[in-house]
């Protein structure tokens, strides 16, 4: 069925076109016909042959009468010439008219009569002159003789002319009738064609109307669907907005090529100094960190847990996660930033707690040992000397007992401050426990270590601390020194050596430095 429809349409179109062509041809034919008739009937009709015939007949009689009057001496040559002229003028049109062709049967005697009369009139007129009366009488005599015989034939001309004119009029009527008949057919054809065209127009109009309605319905449903879809998208967008806004993470969606900002969450927006292509750079505190981040962006499709310090105005630690996306066929970066300042702070705090002695603020035993091992290895590697000091507050138990733990703690803190002041820049320092401290002094051989220890001991001895009762509390320390001198050794070993030296110092009266190393300077305190 499908292919027959176009063919059907084609045929209908062909029929329509041929109808139109026929209508145009018929109209053209009608125009030509009507125009011809118009031209014909523009000039007044010339059916005067009956009158002319009657006039010829009358003139023949009048000429005959005038001839008789000339013969009777009642008329003159000019009168005869005048009548003859009139008669000749009556004859001429009848000789040239084609009206007698319309006679149903040819009247053979007609042309003969006309010719005969013409020859008579010619002959007579040639013989007459305006002044010659005698010649006029002669001619008049002939006229009086001949003309009466012409009255019968000229009467016949009237009869023939009458029939001929009637026939001609009828022929013309017939012709006109045929023309009108043809015009009627043409008009019928035009009317039918117009009806067909009108029907076609009406059908097309209804079809168009139908199509328009359908199109309208389709359009409306499409619009509704689009509106519904838009609404859903809006809802989704709003939902996404809510999710993003309520997320603890900040989000930025940036074009990969030009860092065009598709989306930047509010907090992040406030933190950056600019929101155009320099957004990301302005966000980083450290430009080196930014460079590293950009390198990572260029090489990885996705990465998480990148720690960075953001917001140069009030820096904080952020954990960055990145995903590569494609938006409208452009590459883009989705960057999540989680504020981990609090975590960092807590981490730092925990680290502090884990590595530091809370009372003195010095490293605890474990941390000290770790740092000491590290430093010792370094010194070994670099073949530098280094010494370990083990420091113990003399008679601390007695201070505690006499003044209470509170004062004991104060003493510990005061001593720790002195230790820190003397030893901190020189290497790891820590509280081993109780009133015992230890330090590793890098780049210090036995002599140097001894001098440092002595200075320290001296400084502590000069401390003036007061108990709650206002009495001065004398504080002294004993120091055991062990120096690493190139042999393979361990911190523990050095500590044990230093501990032994400390024990020696205690046993030799306290407030003094001791070393087991014989090459070191002797006791001086």
């Amino acid at each position, binding site marked *: 069925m499908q292919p027959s429809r176009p063919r059907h349409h084609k045929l209908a179109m062909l029929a329509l076109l041929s109808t139109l062509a026929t209508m145009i041809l018929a109209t053209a034919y009608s125009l030509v016909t009507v125009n011809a008739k118009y031209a014909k009937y523009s000039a007044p009709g010339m059916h005067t042959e009956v009158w002319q015939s009657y006039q010829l007949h009358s003139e023949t009689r009048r000429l005959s009468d005038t001839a008789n009057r000339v013969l009777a001496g009642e008329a003159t040559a000019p009168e005869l010439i005048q009548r003859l002229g*009139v008669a*000749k*003028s009556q004859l001429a049109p009848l000789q040239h008219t084609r009206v007698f062709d319309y006679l149903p049967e040819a009247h053979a005697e007609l042309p003969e009569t006309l010719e005969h009369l013409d020859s008579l009139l010619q002959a007579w007129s040639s013989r007459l002159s305006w002044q010659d009366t005698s010649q006029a009488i002669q001619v008049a005599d002939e006229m009086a003789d001949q003309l009466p015989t012409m009255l019968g034939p000229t009467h016949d001309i009237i009869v023939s002319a009458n029939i001929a004119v009637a026939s001609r009029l009828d022929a013309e009527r017939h012709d006109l009738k045929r023309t009108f008949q043809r015009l009627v057919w043409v008009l019928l054809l035009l009317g039918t064609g117009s009806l067909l065209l009108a029907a076609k127009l009406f059908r097309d109009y209804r079809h168009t109307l139908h199509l328009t309605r359908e199109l309208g319905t389709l359009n409306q449903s499409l619009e509704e669907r689009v509106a519904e879809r838009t609404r859903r998208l809006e809802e989704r967008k709003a939902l996404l907005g809510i999710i993003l806004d309520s997320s603890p993470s900040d989000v930025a969606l940036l074009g990969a090529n030009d860092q065009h900002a598709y989306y930047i969450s509010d907090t992040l927006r406030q933190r950056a100094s600019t929101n155009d292509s320099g957004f990301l750079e302005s966000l980083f505190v450290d430009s080196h960190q930014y460079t590293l981040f950009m390198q990572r962006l260029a090489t990885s499709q996705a990465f998480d847990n990148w720690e960075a310090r953001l917001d140069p105005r009030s820096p904080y630690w952020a954990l960055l996660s990145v995903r590569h996306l494609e938006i409208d066929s452009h590459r883009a970066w989705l960057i999540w930033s989680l504020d981990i300042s609090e975590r960092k702070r807590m981490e730092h705090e925990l680290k502090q707690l884990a590595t530091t002695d809370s009372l003195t603020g010095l490293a605890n035993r474990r941390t000290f040992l770790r740092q000491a091992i590290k430093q010792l290895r370094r010194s070994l590697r670099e073949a530098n000397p280094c010494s370990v000091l083990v420091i113990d507050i003399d008679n601390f138990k007695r201070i505690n007992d006499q003044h209470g733990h509170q004062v004991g703690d104060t003493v510990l803190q005061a001593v720790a401050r002195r230790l820190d002041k003397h030893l901190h820049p020189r290497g790891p320092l820590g509280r081993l426990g109780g009133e015992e401290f230890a330090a590793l002094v890098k780049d210090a051989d036995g002599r140097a270590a001894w001098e440092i220890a002595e200075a320290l001991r001296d400084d502590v001895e000069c401390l003036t601390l007061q108990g709650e009762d206002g009495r001065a509390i004398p504080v002294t320390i004993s120091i055991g020194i062990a120096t690493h001198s190139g042999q393979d050794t361990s911190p523990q070993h050095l500590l044990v050596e230093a501990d032994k030296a400390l024990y020696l110092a205690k046993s030799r009266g306290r407030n003094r430095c001791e070393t087991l190393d014989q090459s070191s300077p002797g006791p001086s305190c």
Partner: protein
Amino acid sequence: MHRVITSLLLTGLILAFGAQAAPPRDMPILTIHPGAGGTPHVLSVADLEAYPRRSVTGLIPDVGDHEAEWTGVSLASLLQGLGEPWPARITASAMDSYRETIPGSDLEHYDPIIAYQRNGEYLSISQRGPLVIMYPYGEHPELLTRVFFSRTVWQLDELRLE
């Protein structure tokens, strides 16, 4: 044969005596009857030629005549010249007893002439002369109707004024 010789002879005679020629120009040929007991005016072609000439383009209808320049005297100015009052109508008669009435208004609207020359030639009676009432058909194509054809009186010999 006899007829041919006769015609040839006749043609020769026509040329010799001019019998076919127009009537003598001084021959009285037109009678104008004023209304109600006035004295008739009898005029020759020469009398008419004494008046100012007027030319119109026209033709004698129904006889196969073609358009030509007709010269004569304006009917209106002729009557004025003769001292006749403006007529309500004029009855024009011809030598062949034809007659037709011309309304006085025609004189005003179309100023027809009494023509004595066609294309500069005087006319014989057999050529429907010597005088013809001619309307200016060339100037006024609307005159090409039977009404004015009837008023185009040829072989004019009498005018009656009313």
